[in-house]
């Protein structure tokens, strides 16, 4: 246990579905990996790609974005916008050498505590297998500078 690498995952959960799914997982006493640290946003559409990059840069090994199922977003279609941004962000992360599995998107409705819990377990395992992200070495590269990375501009669709 002590020797095992424990990844840190930041979870951006939408207020209406996924945050409540996590609430429900707790209320139903569903046990899952304690590695995901949730942050509430009103809608998955609020998740600026900068948040994800920021989390990875600040030491997270992975990021989970969770929203309502398509068609069920509290704000009509914020989750679809989140999906589009996610696709672009993934393409960008790939180019930066960040493994696919580190940033994942999940639809979980307020009644799907179990789905959220299982996803966290699964992601924890996947990232554990990948090892620590070490953004400053992996992404910025060993050029010796402690750089403040320019905040990438949010790309749009």
């Amino acid at each position, binding site marked *: 246990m002590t020797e095992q690498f*424990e990844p*840190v995952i*930041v979870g951006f959960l939408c207020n*209406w579905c996924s*945050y*409540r799914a*996590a*609430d*429900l*997982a*707790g*209320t139903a*006493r*569903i*046990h*899952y*990996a*304690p590695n995901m*640290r*949730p*942050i*509430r*946003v*009103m*809608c998955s*559409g*609020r*998740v*600026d*790609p*900068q*948040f994800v990059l*920021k*989390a990875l*840069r*600040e*030491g*997270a090994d992975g990021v989970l974005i969770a929203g309502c*199922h398509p*068609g*069920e*977003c*509290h*704000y*009509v*279609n*914020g989750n679809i*916008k989140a999906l589009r*941004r996610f696709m672009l962000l993934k393409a960008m992360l790939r180019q930066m050498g960040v493994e696919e599995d580190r940033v994942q998107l999940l639809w979980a409705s307020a*009644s799907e505590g179990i789905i959220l*819990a299982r996803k966290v377990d699964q992601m924890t395992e996947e990232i554990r297998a990948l090892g620590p992200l070490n*953004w*400053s070495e992996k992404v910025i590269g060993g050029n010796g500078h*402690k*750089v*403040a*990375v320019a905040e990438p*501009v*949010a790309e*749009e669709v």
Partner: protein
Amino acid sequence: MSEKVNPEQERVGVYVCHCGSNIAKVVDVEDVATWAADLPNVEVSRDYKFMCSSLGQDLIEEDIKEKGLTKVVVASCSPHMHEKTFRVACERGGLNPFMFEMANIREHDSWTTDDEVAATSKAKALTNAAIERVVHHQPLEQLPVEINPNTLVVGGGIAGISATLELANAGHHVYMVEREPTIGGHMAQLDKTFPTLDCSACILTPKMVDVGQHPNITLLTWSEVEKVDGFLGNFTVNVRKKARYVNEEHCTGCGICIEKCPFKVSDDIFEVGLSERKVIYRPFPQAVPKYPVIDKENCVYFQRGKCKACQIFCPTEPNSIEFEQEDEILSFDVGNIILATGYDLFDVKKIPQYGYGRLANVFTSLEFERMVNASGPTEGSIVLRDMESTPKSVAIVHCVGSRDENYHKYCSKVCCMYSLKFAHLVHERIPEAEVYNCYIDMRTPGKGYEEFYNRLLEEETNFIRGKVAEVTDAARIPEEEGKLIVQVEDTLIGRQRRVPVDMVILSPAMEARADSKEISQLFKMGCDFDGFFVERHPKLDPVATMTDGIYIAGACQGPKDVPDSVAQGAAAAARVAGLINLGTVMMEPVRASINQDECSGCKICNNMCPYNAIIFHEDREVSEVITALCQGCGTCVAACPSGVITGAHFTNDQLFSQIEGILWDVRPEKVTA
């Protein structure tokens, strides 16, 4: 971002809750509280048995007053549980309620693991995130919104009628918009209603008449909503009132025009194709309103310029037939909207092995319903497609398209009951006939429903438990000649059976209206995968939607029988009446705003907004958020390439600080943020 707060000067109070043993059993709450006491900005940090108790709240109140706290963090349960409680406590202490943040260390932490070390470290991360976030909180004021006392009800089925009458009888004005020429919906087509078998028309028509005559109701039939703008309390709707070609002020509804019209077409809607109607028509005699409508597509005058029989024979002065009438667009304001657009029936032709359309004597439930209706095409006699022979045996197939992986997975809830009703009606009208009900499971939950099932068992209906595989006319033995053969596995005796019958009735799934997706977009609320409208909460808020001011009732929310539709109609009306009585409501100030000085005018946000709440000022080339329309999702904030849109209470500063805070233990040593 233009933050007024100076984080250095903030004094934060941190309160870590034990929640009895709910949190304290797994999280070392004392450790978290002591640890937090040393964090920057923290003025006081405590742990307490029950923070939500009045003593716990007093603690916060006193500290605000005595220690001059400017911000408060409570690490306890979910904000969905107690955020309001603690905001109010802060307010009592003299702080703006938004100077508060909650860390969810119960639902998201102590209840999800037994690992005390991990749980405690997660609790620290969540608490620290809340502390780092809260120092960036800004005071916000709730937004007062006035409620226009008029209401729009869309759909004049029994659910819409129920909602409309409740509101109108309580003294409020209602606009009812119905797409067909008459109100009544599906219930008007039914003969008897289970389980009491009272005649549908007898209980429905008085209500329809009430709607037609009520001084508080503006009834717009043959009309559709085209546009909806606005928000809770202040919607503006545009309604297209289709040309009826009959002047509603002059027409007395005498019906002479219908009588004199020389042309007939198949009545595919009300009589589901079983009989014909005139080209100028009223769907059924008790239609409300009573004015007929000309079916332009089939009218010989409109198509060929000749006829005008209706006009020639119209006895009113001035003449009520107006061929030159055009669609009208009406615009009016309402405070709330109730959607009661009902359901469609599953198209049974999608299951070709059941033979509908190919085998003449396979009927749909709605066809049968019209047939047994005394005012229907056969005046109540049950006959085969030749419209004269009486069937000696009838099979009723439950769950056609329901509880089926290939079509709809859900149970349509009412089909078992009306299939039993059909069996009863066949026994009643043709006592010597054999009736077979093929069902998967018999579902009769409801007051008096199981009793009705027992009654049918006594009436000696043949119940076959099994899903019908096929309906065919290919006989294998002489007894099957000229019959329809229902091939079904009787799971109770574990055998395949071939049941030869004269008539087959299919009970199709109730499904969402074909246009439910467009309707949900028009009203800016959600529908689920199946197309049914989504309620705010499946148990605790079944008639509200996620959009303030929009309510749903009846079968548009999911399959439902008449009693449930009526109850939902009344429930939606009660919700609306409550708001009307309040007059003004306060809305969460979680809204976006655009810094007008820095907006580059790229318009990217304009299309992002699902509520069209962002307008573009052509003259100044900047965008602006209409605060009252904004619902606070933050999509535009994330989309703005210049970063000049602020999402109140979810600002970039607040979220970035929260991210930093949540990663306190793993952050690479101080990268410039």
